[in-house]
Protein backbone atom coordinates (compact mmCIF):
# COMPACT_ATOMS: atom_id res chain seq x y z
CA UNK A 1 0.00 0.00 0.00
CA UNK A 2 1.38 3.39 -0.95
CA UNK A 3 1.43 5.83 1.90
CA UNK A 4 -0.19 9.23 1.53
CA UNK A 5 1.40 12.21 3.20
CA UNK A 6 -0.67 14.95 4.83
CA UNK A 7 -0.57 17.23 1.79
CA UNK A 8 -1.93 14.49 -0.41
CA UNK A 9 -4.68 13.84 2.10
CA UNK A 10 -5.72 17.50 2.19
CA UNK A 11 -6.10 17.53 -1.58
CA UNK A 12 -8.56 14.66 -1.40
CA UNK A 13 -10.62 15.77 1.59
CA UNK A 14 -13.23 17.53 -0.51
CA UNK A 15 -13.59 14.54 -2.84
CA UNK A 16 -13.76 12.25 0.16
CA UNK A 17 -16.62 14.28 1.61
CA UNK A 18 -18.39 13.93 -1.74
CA UNK A 19 -17.72 10.21 -1.78
CA UNK A 20 -15.91 10.82 -5.06
CA UNK A 21 -12.74 8.84 -4.48
CA UNK A 22 -11.84 5.39 -5.71
CA UNK A 23 -12.17 2.55 -3.20
CA UNK A 24 -8.37 2.24 -3.18
CA UNK A 25 -7.98 5.95 -2.40
CA UNK A 26 -10.66 5.69 0.25
CA UNK A 27 -8.70 2.93 1.97
CA UNK A 28 -5.53 4.99 1.79
CA UNK A 29 -7.24 8.04 3.20
CA UNK A 30 -8.92 6.16 5.99
CA UNK A 31 -5.67 4.47 6.93
CA UNK A 32 -4.00 7.86 7.15
CA UNK A 33 -6.91 9.48 8.99
CA UNK A 34 -6.96 6.74 11.57
CA UNK A 35 -3.39 7.60 12.51
CA UNK A 36 -3.14 11.32 11.94
CA UNK A 37 -4.98 13.48 14.39
CA UNK A 38 -4.33 16.66 12.42
CA UNK A 39 -5.80 15.39 9.18
CA UNK A 40 -8.73 13.84 10.99
CA UNK A 41 -9.41 17.20 12.65
CA UNK A 42 -9.18 18.94 9.30
CA UNK A 43 -11.65 16.50 7.77
CA UNK A 44 -14.02 16.99 10.69
CA UNK A 45 -13.89 20.75 10.45
CA UNK A 46 -14.33 20.85 6.67
CA UNK A 47 -17.20 18.42 6.93
CA UNK A 48 -18.79 20.48 9.67
CA UNK A 49 -18.62 23.78 7.78
CA UNK A 50 -20.23 22.05 4.81
CA UNK A 51 -23.03 20.84 7.07
CA UNK A 52 -23.32 24.29 8.63
CA UNK A 53 -23.73 26.29 5.43
CA UNK A 54 -26.53 23.96 4.37
CA UNK A 55 -28.42 24.57 7.62
CA UNK A 56 -31.84 25.84 6.65
CA UNK A 57 -32.11 27.94 9.78
CA UNK A 58 -29.54 30.34 8.35
CA UNK A 59 -32.00 31.67 5.83
CA UNK A 60 -35.15 33.60 6.06
CA UNK A 61 -37.03 34.71 3.03
CA UNK A 62 -37.87 38.40 3.31
CA UNK A 63 -41.42 38.93 4.53
CA UNK A 64 -43.74 39.19 1.54
CA UNK A 65 -41.17 37.83 -0.91
CA UNK A 66 -43.54 35.34 -2.45
CA UNK A 67 -46.40 37.83 -2.70
CA UNK A 68 -44.23 40.39 -4.46
CA UNK A 69 -42.84 37.77 -6.82
CA UNK A 70 -46.31 36.53 -7.70
CA UNK A 71 -47.51 40.05 -8.27
CA UNK A 72 -44.71 40.68 -10.70
CA UNK A 73 -45.25 37.37 -12.44
CA UNK A 74 -48.97 38.00 -12.68
CA UNK A 75 -48.28 41.14 -14.69
CA UNK A 76 -46.00 39.19 -16.97
CA UNK A 77 -48.29 36.22 -17.32
CA UNK A 78 -51.25 38.45 -18.13
CA UNK A 79 -49.27 40.68 -20.40
CA UNK A 80 -48.03 38.79 -23.40
CA UNK A 81 -51.45 37.55 -24.48
CA UNK A 82 -50.51 35.10 -27.17
Amino acid at each position, binding site marked *: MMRLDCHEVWLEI*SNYIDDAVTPAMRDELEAHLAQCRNCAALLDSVHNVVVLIADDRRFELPVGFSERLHLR*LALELAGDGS
Partner: protein
Amino acid sequence: MEQASVPVQPSPTGLPDEREKLLLAKILNGERDCFYELIAPYERRVYLTAYEILRNSPDAEEVAQEAFLKAYRGLSKFRGESKFSTWLLRITVNEARMRWRKVREVSLESLLPEDDETGYTPLQLADWREIPGEALDKRETREQISQALAALPEKYREILTLRDINGLSVAETAEALDLGISNVKTRLFRARMQLRDAFIALGQNTTQGKKKTGWLR
Protein backbone atom coordinates in the same frame (compact mmCIF):
# COMPACT_ATOMS: atom_id res chain seq x y z
CA MET B 1 -12.06 11.95 18.30
CA GLU B 2 -15.32 11.93 16.44
CA GLN B 3 -15.06 10.88 12.87
CA ALA B 4 -17.05 12.90 10.41
CA SER B 5 -19.88 10.97 8.91
CA VAL B 6 -19.33 11.13 5.19
CA PRO B 7 -20.52 11.67 2.55
CA VAL B 8 -22.52 14.83 2.74
CA GLN B 9 -25.43 14.56 0.37
CA PRO B 10 -27.92 17.36 0.72
CA SER B 11 -31.17 16.30 -0.84
CA PRO B 12 -32.83 18.99 -2.87
CA THR B 13 -36.56 18.78 -2.84
CA GLY B 14 -38.59 19.52 -5.88
CA LEU B 15 -41.63 18.28 -7.70
CA PRO B 16 -41.67 14.72 -9.00
CA ASP B 17 -40.23 14.64 -12.52
CA GLU B 18 -43.50 13.64 -14.17
CA ARG B 19 -45.38 16.46 -12.50
CA GLU B 20 -42.72 18.93 -13.59
CA LYS B 21 -42.89 17.71 -17.19
CA LEU B 22 -46.66 17.92 -17.19
CA LEU B 23 -46.60 21.47 -15.83
CA LEU B 24 -44.02 22.54 -18.39
CA ALA B 25 -46.15 21.14 -21.20
CA LYS B 26 -49.26 22.84 -19.84
CA ILE B 27 -47.58 26.22 -19.54
CA LEU B 28 -46.25 26.03 -23.07
CA ASN B 29 -49.74 25.10 -24.09
CA GLY B 30 -51.15 28.29 -22.66
CA GLU B 31 -52.01 27.31 -19.09
CA ARG B 32 -49.74 29.97 -17.74
CA ASP B 33 -50.87 29.85 -14.15
CA CYS B 34 -49.19 26.47 -13.83
CA PHE B 35 -45.94 28.42 -13.66
CA TYR B 36 -46.64 29.24 -10.01
CA GLU B 37 -46.80 25.57 -9.11
CA LEU B 38 -43.72 24.81 -11.19
CA ILE B 39 -41.57 27.33 -9.36
CA ALA B 40 -43.04 26.97 -5.86
CA PRO B 41 -40.37 24.51 -4.66
CA TYR B 42 -37.62 26.82 -5.90
CA GLU B 43 -38.62 30.27 -4.69
CA ARG B 44 -36.51 29.96 -1.58
CA ARG B 45 -33.56 28.37 -3.35
CA VAL B 46 -33.45 30.99 -6.08
CA TYR B 47 -33.57 33.78 -3.52
CA LEU B 48 -30.87 32.35 -1.32
CA THR B 49 -28.63 31.63 -4.29
CA ALA B 50 -28.89 35.26 -5.32
CA TYR B 51 -28.44 36.34 -1.73
CA GLU B 52 -25.27 34.35 -1.13
CA ILE B 53 -23.74 35.84 -4.25
CA LEU B 54 -24.87 39.42 -3.68
CA ARG B 55 -24.96 39.61 0.12
CA ASN B 56 -27.73 42.14 -0.08
CA SER B 57 -31.38 41.38 0.44
CA PRO B 58 -33.06 43.96 -1.84
CA ASP B 59 -30.67 43.15 -4.69
CA ALA B 60 -31.17 39.44 -4.16
CA GLU B 61 -34.93 39.82 -4.27
CA GLU B 62 -34.80 41.78 -7.48
CA VAL B 63 -32.40 39.31 -9.06
CA ALA B 64 -34.63 36.43 -7.97
CA GLN B 65 -37.64 38.08 -9.59
CA GLU B 66 -35.66 38.70 -12.77
CA ALA B 67 -34.50 35.10 -12.83
CA PHE B 68 -38.07 33.80 -12.59
CA LEU B 69 -39.23 36.20 -15.28
CA LYS B 70 -36.37 35.17 -17.52
CA ALA B 71 -37.15 31.53 -16.91
CA TYR B 72 -40.78 32.11 -17.81
CA ARG B 73 -39.90 33.99 -20.97
CA GLY B 74 -37.33 31.40 -21.97
CA LEU B 75 -39.35 28.34 -21.05
CA SER B 76 -39.79 27.26 -24.66
CA LYS B 77 -36.00 27.05 -24.88
CA PHE B 78 -35.80 24.67 -21.96
CA ARG B 79 -35.47 21.29 -23.59
CA GLY B 80 -35.34 19.09 -20.57
CA GLU B 81 -31.77 17.98 -21.16
CA SER B 82 -30.97 19.18 -17.68
CA LYS B 83 -33.18 19.34 -14.65
CA PHE B 84 -35.46 22.34 -14.47
CA SER B 85 -33.90 23.28 -11.13
CA THR B 86 -30.38 23.26 -12.59
CA TRP B 87 -31.51 25.37 -15.52
CA LEU B 88 -33.27 27.81 -13.21
CA LEU B 89 -30.28 28.12 -10.90
CA ARG B 90 -28.02 28.68 -13.87
CA ILE B 91 -30.19 31.63 -14.90
CA THR B 92 -30.13 32.87 -11.30
CA VAL B 93 -26.35 32.69 -11.04
CA ASN B 94 -25.95 34.55 -14.33
CA GLU B 95 -28.37 37.28 -13.25
CA ALA B 96 -26.64 37.59 -9.89
CA ARG B 97 -23.23 37.78 -11.52
CA MET B 98 -24.35 40.58 -13.79
CA ARG B 99 -25.68 42.47 -10.82
CA TRP B 100 -22.57 41.77 -8.78
CA ARG B 101 -20.33 43.10 -11.52
CA LYS B 102 -22.43 46.20 -11.82
CA VAL B 103 -22.15 46.97 -8.13
CA ARG B 104 -18.48 46.12 -8.05
CA GLU B 105 -17.02 47.75 -11.12
CA VAL B 106 -13.62 46.15 -10.77
CA SER B 107 -13.62 42.67 -9.44
CA LEU B 108 -10.82 41.98 -7.04
CA GLU B 109 -11.21 38.33 -7.79
CA SER B 110 -9.80 38.75 -11.26
CA LEU B 111 -6.54 39.44 -9.51
CA LEU B 112 -6.61 36.21 -7.60
CA PRO B 113 -4.77 33.14 -8.84
CA GLU B 114 -6.77 30.77 -11.01
CA ASP B 115 -8.05 27.40 -10.00
CA ASP B 116 -5.33 25.31 -11.52
CA GLU B 117 -3.36 25.54 -8.31
CA THR B 118 -3.65 22.38 -6.38
CA GLY B 119 -1.65 23.18 -3.29
CA TYR B 120 -3.29 23.83 0.01
CA THR B 121 -1.99 24.46 3.45
CA PRO B 122 -4.57 24.92 6.14
CA LEU B 123 -4.59 28.24 7.84
CA GLN B 124 -3.14 28.07 11.31
CA LEU B 125 -1.39 24.83 10.78
CA ALA B 126 -0.19 24.82 14.34
CA ASP B 127 -3.63 25.40 15.68
CA TRP B 128 -5.73 22.38 14.83
CA ARG B 129 -9.17 22.93 16.02
CA GLU B 130 -12.15 20.81 15.62
CA ILE B 131 -15.63 22.14 15.51
CA PRO B 132 -17.50 20.32 18.23
CA GLY B 133 -20.79 18.75 17.24
CA GLU B 134 -22.76 20.72 19.80
CA ALA B 135 -21.58 24.01 18.27
CA LEU B 136 -23.37 23.12 15.04
CA ASP B 137 -26.66 23.76 16.71
CA LYS B 138 -25.97 27.26 17.99
CA ARG B 139 -27.26 30.44 16.46
CA GLU B 140 -23.89 32.09 17.00
CA THR B 141 -22.25 29.36 14.95
CA ARG B 142 -24.72 29.86 12.13
CA GLU B 143 -24.03 33.58 12.10
CA GLN B 144 -20.34 32.87 12.04
CA ILE B 145 -20.61 30.53 9.07
CA SER B 146 -22.66 33.12 7.19
CA GLN B 147 -19.94 35.68 7.83
CA ALA B 148 -17.26 33.26 6.73
CA LEU B 149 -19.13 32.51 3.51
CA ALA B 150 -19.65 36.20 2.85
CA ALA B 151 -15.92 36.78 3.15
CA LEU B 152 -15.07 34.40 0.29
CA PRO B 153 -14.55 35.48 -3.32
CA GLU B 154 -17.65 35.42 -5.50
CA LYS B 155 -16.67 32.31 -7.44
CA TYR B 156 -16.36 30.35 -4.21
CA ARG B 157 -19.68 31.63 -2.90
CA GLU B 158 -21.30 30.56 -6.16
CA ILE B 159 -19.99 27.05 -6.10
CA LEU B 160 -20.71 26.47 -2.42
CA THR B 161 -24.22 27.80 -2.86
CA LEU B 162 -24.95 25.48 -5.75
CA ARG B 163 -23.24 22.35 -4.52
CA ASP B 164 -23.44 22.47 -0.75
CA ILE B 165 -26.46 24.66 -0.07
CA ASN B 166 -28.69 23.75 -3.00
CA GLY B 167 -27.43 20.20 -3.14
CA LEU B 168 -26.73 20.08 -6.86
CA SER B 169 -24.53 17.18 -7.89
CA VAL B 170 -21.02 17.91 -9.12
CA ALA B 171 -22.23 17.37 -12.70
CA GLU B 172 -25.20 19.71 -12.24
CA THR B 173 -22.96 22.32 -10.63
CA ALA B 174 -20.65 22.05 -13.62
CA GLU B 175 -23.59 22.63 -15.92
CA ALA B 176 -24.95 25.57 -13.95
CA LEU B 177 -21.55 27.25 -13.92
CA ASP B 178 -20.50 26.21 -17.40
CA LEU B 179 -17.37 24.55 -16.06
CA GLY B 180 -15.75 21.18 -16.55
CA ILE B 181 -16.15 18.53 -13.86
CA SER B 182 -12.51 18.64 -12.82
CA ASN B 183 -12.64 22.44 -12.54
CA VAL B 184 -15.68 22.11 -10.32
CA LYS B 185 -13.89 19.64 -8.08
CA THR B 186 -10.81 21.83 -7.79
CA ARG B 187 -12.80 24.97 -7.14
CA LEU B 188 -15.00 23.18 -4.64
CA PHE B 189 -11.95 21.93 -2.82
CA ARG B 190 -10.49 25.41 -2.56
CA ALA B 191 -13.81 26.94 -1.62
CA ARG B 192 -14.47 24.47 1.18
CA MET B 193 -10.97 24.82 2.57
CA GLN B 194 -11.17 28.61 2.49
CA LEU B 195 -14.57 28.48 4.12
CA ARG B 196 -13.18 26.32 6.87
CA ASP B 197 -10.20 28.64 7.34
CA ALA B 198 -12.39 31.74 7.40
CA PHE B 199 -14.75 30.13 9.87
CA ILE B 200 -11.95 29.12 12.21
CA ALA B 201 -10.39 32.58 11.96
CA LEU B 202 -13.67 34.23 12.90
CA GLY B 203 -14.08 31.84 15.80
CA GLN B 204 -10.70 32.85 17.10
CA ASN B 205 -11.52 36.52 16.96
CA THR B 206 -14.80 36.14 18.74
CA THR B 207 -13.54 33.77 21.37
CA GLN B 208 -10.38 35.67 22.17
CA GLY B 209 -10.60 37.09 25.64
CA LYS B 210 -13.73 35.09 26.33
CA LYS B 211 -12.58 31.54 26.22
CA LYS B 212 -8.98 30.71 25.71
CA THR B 213 -9.77 27.30 24.39
CA GLY B 214 -12.00 28.30 21.50
CA TRP B 215 -13.16 25.17 19.74
CA LEU B 216 -10.84 22.92 21.63
CA ARG B 217 -12.45 20.34 23.75
